[in-house]
């Protein structure tokens, strides 16, 4: 995902202390100007926590599968998201559609992590 997991977890910890904890205090004060905002902040934070938990559980297996799938095409560069993305991107720039297929499969695998949060797959509009 765009937000690397360590950065997301660090930001979540900060958010819990600086945004969510004060927000929870406000939830009990519906007349407070920021009570409504606080409710939304707490709910969004809870969703992000679920995403982070799902990502933590799913990432090792997904990473291993994506690396294994790409190894035949890019060798050792397949290990690690950024080196794999850079190597597949270089092939894609040369018109190698096998690289696009691998990148698409990885994007779909990343989305699949969200299925546990009851999010259906993206639906096209045609």
């Amino acid at each position, binding site marked *: *995902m765009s937000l690397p997991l360590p950065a*997301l977890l660090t930001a979540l910890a900060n958010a819990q202390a600086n945004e969510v904890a004060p927000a929870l205090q406000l939830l009990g004060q519906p007349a407070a100007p920021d009570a409504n905002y606080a409710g939304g902040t707490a709910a969004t934070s809870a969703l992000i926590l679920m995403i982070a938990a799902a990502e933590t559980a799913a990432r090792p297996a997904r990473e291993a599968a994506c690396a294994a799938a790409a190894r035949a095409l890019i060798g050792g560069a397949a290990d690690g998201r950024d080196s794999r993305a850079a190597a597949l991107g270089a092939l894609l720039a040369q018109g190698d559609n096998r690289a696009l297929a691998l990148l698409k499969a990885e994007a779909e695998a990343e989305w699949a992590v*969200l299925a546990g949060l009851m999010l259906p797959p*993206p*639906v096209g*509009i045609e």
Partner: protein
Amino acid sequence: MPAEHLARFLSEHWGEPVSISGLKRFHGGSARQTYRFDAIGASGRREALVLRRDPPSSLIETDRLAEYRAIQCFAGSNVPVPEPIFCDEGPDSFGSPGFLMREVPGGAAAGLLEPEPYGEHAAAIGQQFFTALGRIHAADPARARLPAMASADAAAARLAHWKAAFDADAFRPEPLLDAAFRWLAANLPPPPEYISIVHGDYRSGNFLHDGAGTLLAVLDWEMVHPGDAHEDLAWACDPLWSNFSGRPAATLPLAEAIATWEAASGLTLNPESWRWWRLFAQVQGLVIWISAAREIIDGRSHDPVLMFAGTIPYRFHCVTLARALEALT
């Protein structure tokens, strides 16, 4: 919290002591902080108002005066917008740059993940939504005091805008976006028939409806600019804003949406432009989500809304962009 700013500002403008009650901040909308409140004058005058002001960290850099002028342009027209009242580009009036509008009572906006947000009124809302978009595109950009733009520059200017944002905020390899930028640069669409007012973020979730099939007000004009009308139409029809329904903005079937827009705008969809701007819409989205993630990574914000943008919409657009690139080959 701007209550003291609001009371001071309105007391000066109304010429009587004004108190503020019912101040409430809305959640979401990372480009602006939005509050509603009741202003009550000593004479008994009472008005329900909305303040939109700049936050300390914004998902996108925008021009509040351009937003205000766009709302002014359509106030009282057949494009429903809130009534604008006052704009201050500086911090004096509201603590940070912002503007006041009259509150639109009884309105609700759809959530991104809410299934079928308009229920049995989806078709009625879609008719009004795409009609309003067509009317926006039929209007003269000079009325909104937008800068002049040559038709030939419409696509290239937007591409350059989002490429610069991507170059500034990217923090790791993004090969799908790189490939999309290459394709867009190599396949620029034909110039539009004329330059339109482009809302810039016209989509489900950025308008108020009454829950009974009436669109009350088009909101969130902060990304307004002159350009190709196809840009707005493609963004409005992007799958991300369909609430997983497969219908543009979770309303009408695509063909009906386009026909409605054509009837209201007087424009005819150009298939070549349409293909280009649909891909562009996904690129624009991904750059916005990456910029949101960058705010978090760099520690400028720990707003969960920006974290959300950097996760669910990002992953959504990675999938749809990969599919779109595959379809181009």
